[in-house]
């Protein structure tokens, strides 16, 4: 509305076309998930549906409202005034956010139920000790994820477009989506710490299970993934200077940023020892000194060093963006005039993000150990076991590939099969 540039309209319309198709798959998969749970986990699903009946009912209503709003938003795009159109968009986001808060209540309750859940009020069940932390983390992550999905779509379209003007548009679209994704990505570590702190205050043994015991190497892998995300974000900025006249002179400064990201990630993922969990014996013939961090470097294994490292990584990523902004201020941007590597970075980032989500989801579920609802309802089914990191990585990898395949199918269906809308 402010600039009256058609590219914003096109970005919104094409993104919404993807959303509309993807929404149907979301609803179907959500229903499938619920039905699959009901079979082998009848006691657990019955418990949840009984305690959270109002929540699930409201969730269903909100999904109906969301669907109505979304199709109204899409089909009245050109017939309503821009004010009404944006208002519908805001309503769409609000309803979706409330729906997310409701399901977060159920998910967080499973890990941190309040004392005496049998007699607690519905509000006490919803507003359980980790609800706020989970809400914050997921709210921010939704924006990050949305940005990365726009970037993924733009990269797909760039790489499969034959026209230069289309590639110019999708280069800009990818930059815009990635900017939103990375800007909010920088807030996620803070939200993650807040969530972890809530878990620690609820039950310190959960924190030990996560950070020092069986799930500790899951967090090692998470550290690698987040380091890759920030490295990818800075690399994209570096590649982006190619499309700016005289932008290459900033690349040397950006190399310093890459070094800092590598060093920061190295500090962040340096383990205290190479034992898989707290009760693992040292391998035969190997002394503990070989596996543990030496005394002089012990600070590298402490949270303070890691917090400093991740803060530094976030700050230099912001610095990379500032350098890019400086390049724009002193040169002309020629959209589309960029190495195809940049598009693969825009594919790389969401791939890492989706895999990370799978891994972190597994961590959150496994933190309950053999409880459906922590210390309230045990999981006594024969399906319970604590999967290893290798098994979890494989499952997360499979899910990531299925998701990416599905999204690529949606992109192809929406834009390559018939004539493209909004172009």
């Amino acid at each position, binding site marked *: 509305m402010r600039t009256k540039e058609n590219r914003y309209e096109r970005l919104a319309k094409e993104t919404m076309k993807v959303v509309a198709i993807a929404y149907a798959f979301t609803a179907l998969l959500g229903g499938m998930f619920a039905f699959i749970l009901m079979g082998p986990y009848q006691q657990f699903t019955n418990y949840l549906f009984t305690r959270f009946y109002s929540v699930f009912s409201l969730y269903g209503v909100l999904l109906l409202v969301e669907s109505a709003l979304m199709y109204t938003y899409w089909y009245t795009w050109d017939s309503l005034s821009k004010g009404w159109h944006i208002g519908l968009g805001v309503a769409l986001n609000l309803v979706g956010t409330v729906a997310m808060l409701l399901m977060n209540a159920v998910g967080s309750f499973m890990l941190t139920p309040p004392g005496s859940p049998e007699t607690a009020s519905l509000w006490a069940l919803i507003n359980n000790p980790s609800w706020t932390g989970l809400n914050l983390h997921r709210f921010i992550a939704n924006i990050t994820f949305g940005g990365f999905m726009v970037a993924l779509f733009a990269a797909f379209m760039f790489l*499969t477009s034959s026209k230069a003007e289309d590639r110019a548009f999708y280069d800009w679209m990818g930059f815009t989506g990635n900017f939103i994704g990375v800007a909010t990505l920088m807030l996620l570590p803070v939200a993650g710490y807040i969530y972890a702190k809530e878990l620690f205050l609820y039950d310190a043994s959960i924190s030990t299970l996560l950070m020092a015991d069986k799930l500790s190497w899951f967090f090692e892998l998470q550290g690698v993934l987040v380091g890759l995300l920030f490295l990818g974000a800075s690399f994209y900025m570096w590649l982006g200077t190619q499309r700016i006249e005289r932008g290459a002179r900033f690349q040397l400064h950006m190399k310093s940023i890459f070094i800092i990201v590598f060093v920061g990630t190295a500090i962040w993922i340096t383990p205290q020892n190479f034992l898989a969990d*707290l009760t693992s014996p040292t391998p035969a013939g190997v002394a503990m000194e070989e596996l543990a961090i030496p005394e002089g470097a012990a600070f590298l294994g402490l949270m303070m060093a890691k917090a400093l490292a991740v803060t530094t990584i976030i700050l230099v990523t912001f610095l990379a963006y500032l350098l890019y902004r400086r390049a724009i201020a002193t040169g002309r941007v020629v959209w589309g005039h960029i190495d195809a590597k940049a598009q693969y970075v825009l594919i790389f980032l969401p791939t890492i993000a989706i895999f990370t989500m799978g891994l972190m989801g597994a961590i959150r579920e496994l933190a309950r150990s053999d409880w459906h609802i922590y210390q309230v309802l045990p999981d006594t089914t024969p399906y319970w076991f604590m999967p290893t990191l290798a098994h979890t990585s494989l499952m997360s*990898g499979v899910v990531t590939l299925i998701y990416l395949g599905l999204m690529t199918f949606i992109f192809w269906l929406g834009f390559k099969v018939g004539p493209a809308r909004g172009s």
Partner: protein
Amino acid sequence: MAPIRLVKGPLLSTLAILILIWVLLPLLPEGWGWGFGVRFKFFFSIIVISGGLFFLLLKAPSLPRVKGQGKALAAIFLFYLSVTGVLVVLGGIFPQFELPGVEGEMSSAMEQGRTLFSDPAVGCYLCHAIAGSGGTRGPDLSRIGEVASNRKAGMTAEDYLRESILVPRAYLVPGYPALMPENLADRLTPEQIDNLIEFLRSLR
């Protein structure tokens, strides 16, 4: 010569840091406490080599655009597979914990107590260490069988251990915060509590 000039910087830098890790660091006096084990050296080396490869990537020529939608799609899918594949492999090469074995017939109350102590669902070991293995949030229990009878005047070792499990706030070992769960009486059966105490009393 041009390709050599391009790779010289990253290659030499990578080599220099690897020499620092494998040759120079071990020369530091032992008292400084910077003697990293082989696993740590490999760990840091992988990070350094990854960095070197990344800096080589910066110098790589531009990627040619794949012409044709089919080929472009194939390239995209191949990229999905490659990135995901590397992550799956990474998850596989990190240390893996032993899967808990199927419970066989326990021969004694003490062994059942030991199993209970190491059960993640109960979580004792997450805060209490025995013989260097376990968490450090709670007191070390390596010799608890010896000290329990002297902790509180007039209390036997068994009574002290039972009270510590069921009413943990009744006595806090100095220097440790009050973090022990207070609902173990609800979570464990009387037999399990007896087995746990039997095991703890054996630790001398």
